[in-house]
């Protein structure tokens, strides 16, 4: 039978972008080890509504670690202590009975706070729009097997394409850099022949956009890789930098 646990939470509450924020203490007494961390917040919210207090706002959707909607700092770590796990897949069994856990939003200048634990990550969409695509409009594509691609390149491209765009890399980075996110797309597309044609323009435009959005630069802390729920490698950042320099010199 599932074990019952008491979990103490200190949750960041902030009514809106300009309102003052603070940590508020709550206790969930009947947590189950099999709950996900977001289900723990659900239970807390049910209790809050019962007491006529506004529930804690947080983003989530798929709750299976693939959509990238969720993302909060759990005990100071983006997505919490379990490696390669988005917070929606983090389970209460990772913690101990009686633990106190601080829950805060992903913080970065380029991620303005919306409410409580919800932040605005639309800067990521603008980085992709700056060049994170192949300009292949619908129709007229050659047969899918016309161009063989080595399994190694395809597999490696997939490793980078697995990015879910959650923003943990930014939240974990002391410089609030979006380098891992940006590199993941740059490298995914540069590994495939379809992405070669626009490679130079892509890397320049995406990196420039990243800077314009107010993200910092990378100084090799590797905190991003440590928290990435998809385990994307910082080797991608080095590749992106090389590609950027090459493109700038061409």
């Amino acid at each position: 039978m599932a074990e019952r646990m008491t979990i103490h939470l200190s949750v960041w509450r902030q009514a809106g972008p300009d309102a003052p924020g603070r940590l508020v203490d709550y206790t969930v007494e009947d947590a189950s080890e099999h709950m996900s961390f977001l289900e723990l917040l659900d239970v807390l919210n049910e209790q809050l509504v019962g007491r006529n207090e506004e529930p804690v706002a947080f983003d989530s959707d798929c709750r299976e670690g693939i959509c990238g909607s969720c993302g909060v700092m759990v005990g100071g770590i983006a997505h919490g202590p379990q490696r390669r796990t988005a917070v929606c897949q983090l389970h209460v069994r990772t913690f101990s009975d009686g633990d106190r856990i601080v829950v805060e939003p992903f913080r970065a200048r380029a991620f303005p706070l919306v409410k409580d634990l919800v932040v605005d990550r639309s800067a990521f969409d603008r980085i992709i729009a700056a060049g994170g695509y192949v300009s292949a409009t619908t129709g007229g594509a050659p047969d899918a097997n016309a161009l063989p691609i080595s399994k190694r390149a395809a597999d490696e491209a997939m490793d980078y394409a697995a990015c879910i765009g959650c923003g943990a890399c930014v939240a974990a980075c002391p410089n609030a850099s979006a380098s891992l996110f940006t590199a993941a797309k740059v490298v995914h597309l540069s590994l495939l022949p379809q992405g070669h044609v626009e490679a130079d323009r892509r890397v320049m435009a995406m990196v420039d956009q990243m800077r314009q959005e107010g993200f910092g630069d990378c100084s090799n802390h590797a905190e991003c890789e440590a928290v990435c729920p998809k385990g994307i490698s910082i080797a991608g950042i080095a590749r992106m930098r090389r590609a950027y320099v090459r493109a700038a010199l061409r």
Partner: protein
Amino acid sequence: MQQSARSTLDAKVPAGRLQDKWDAYKDTVGLVSPANKRKRTILVIGTGLAGGSAAATLGALGYQVKSFCIQDSARRAHSIAAQGGINAAKNYPNDGDTIWRLYYDTIKGGDYRSREANVYRLAQVSGNIIDQAVAQGVPFAREYGGLLANRSFGGAQVSRTFYARGQTGQQLLLGAYQALSHQIAAGQVTMLPRREMLDLVVVDGHARGVITRNLVTGQLERHLGDAVLLSTGGYGNAYYLSTNAKNSNVTAAWRCYRRGAYFANPCFTQIHPTCIPVSGSYQSKLTLMSESLRNDGRVWVPKDSQDRRAPHRIPEEDRDYYLERRYPSFGNLVPRDVASRAAKKECDAGRGVGDTRLAVYLDFADAIGRLGQQAIRERYGNLFEMYERITGENPYEVPMRIYPAVHYTMGGLWVDYELQSTINGLFVLGEANFSDHGANRLGASALMQGLADGYFVIPFTLGAYLSGTRVDKQVTVDHDAFREAESSAQGRLLALLAVKGDKTVTEFHRELGRLLWNDVGMARTRAGLEEAIDSIAALREEFWGRVRILGENNTFNKDLEFAGRVADFMELGELMARDALARKESCGGHFREEYQTTEGEALRNDRDFAHVSAWEHTGSNSTPVHHQEALAFETVELTRRSYK
């Protein structure tokens, strides 16, 4: 009473041989000139595979597109969670696949409750989807020689499924999202994230706009267009627990229904056999384990319902591999509906396993013994990891526990061959429409349909509509119809907040889910359905008297969002039960206990029910009118699906 199809339900299927219909349609359909495309605004609701691909494609064609999604980014729609793969009749492995075979498998798999011409077109364009995705840089799995890899999926006799690890939906969606981003950068698409469509605006019988709520500010907004494309996914979350994402809902479709779009086959829901079982009352959603696992996993329960031994202590002779026993030719690979019902039957008979006894084993011991752990890790590594993260058990050592869960809805808004609903200018794409999967969807077909609709069908059919329709240019967002729609949406939000009751939205949703799961779930009876209709009506009344929503309308307010969706799910739930009651046969995912063979298999009634049921809203307090579209089968013979 069986009445014949009403003339209002003309599917507009082109004449001619099945194989020629789509080409003939394309040859003769009206076109919109580039100069005129620029002047047309198309509203696309939802950014999943269907909506994202449609918005990107239409933007590239030169239309002015406004694209809306409820998530904070267009990249997050629920299509992203699809694991297994996408079908296409490429016949790359040279194993005998053809467009005809994909068509035939889909129509048969749907238990002959879908429209031939739509399904054939789907199979026809399936190959183009793969070409398009590869051109976008979708990293599909490949063989060592560099060509695309294929696998057999869900019992198909040919290998026609393309995949990107266990994240095929993610990669296809990101491909569409990137194409969409390209059009956003080009100024062709205006993206409006964190917007929920709360009503459709109909002017003189034509869909001309939508009312959306900005989910950050609570502001209601009016958007005018020449046509509206609804690609808002399915309604599986009516059951509360499903594999759908938390925000997936029926509200946009339901609001269209209330404005005159017919709702087709709402009782056709798909219960997927391989999901991680419910672990407690706090459960917020269910997680699917890809169907591909059944290629190597064997499903079993103990023979004796009293047998409480740990699985590895139960010897072979005390295990019942019930799928292999009951369906010797398909075994563990029987279609989803059959596998789900069989699991339910075992658990109902008390042979379920685990704490809740609502689970069966999916065991990889044999496959690991035969192929080695490494081979299994390569095939399913990420799925095994996910299982362990959620359950805390290691499936390399202990068999997985699985149970069926609501996964997909075949029903949806009724559309004709052009994907147009019964409201002019309202097109419905992807899971939100009813058209291609009949009473049961085959694995790896949802991604195919969403992208077929968005990339390859709508560009033609929308052009046909626009070139043949005089859109009233005088209409602005100040038109009475916009005013009325906005004030009714506003009224509803305020009414929800005004209740100030004592029960949470989730409590009501859970209760609705329980009612639907029990009576409109895997097995349905007349008595149960009649009772469900009454209980749902009572629950609805209670909801509007007791729901408690805190916070304000003009802020980010998740509870308020969910409350509106739950209110609509309640109305839909009643319609689902009504539809299930009217369909006095068993087919695909719809199993009426009264209609089964002596062996407990679904018993179709083609004489009376080879039709699409389409429901017309007639007011909040009156029963909807039941229309039918007769399904004419000209090319396939209706056979009993048998997987023995």
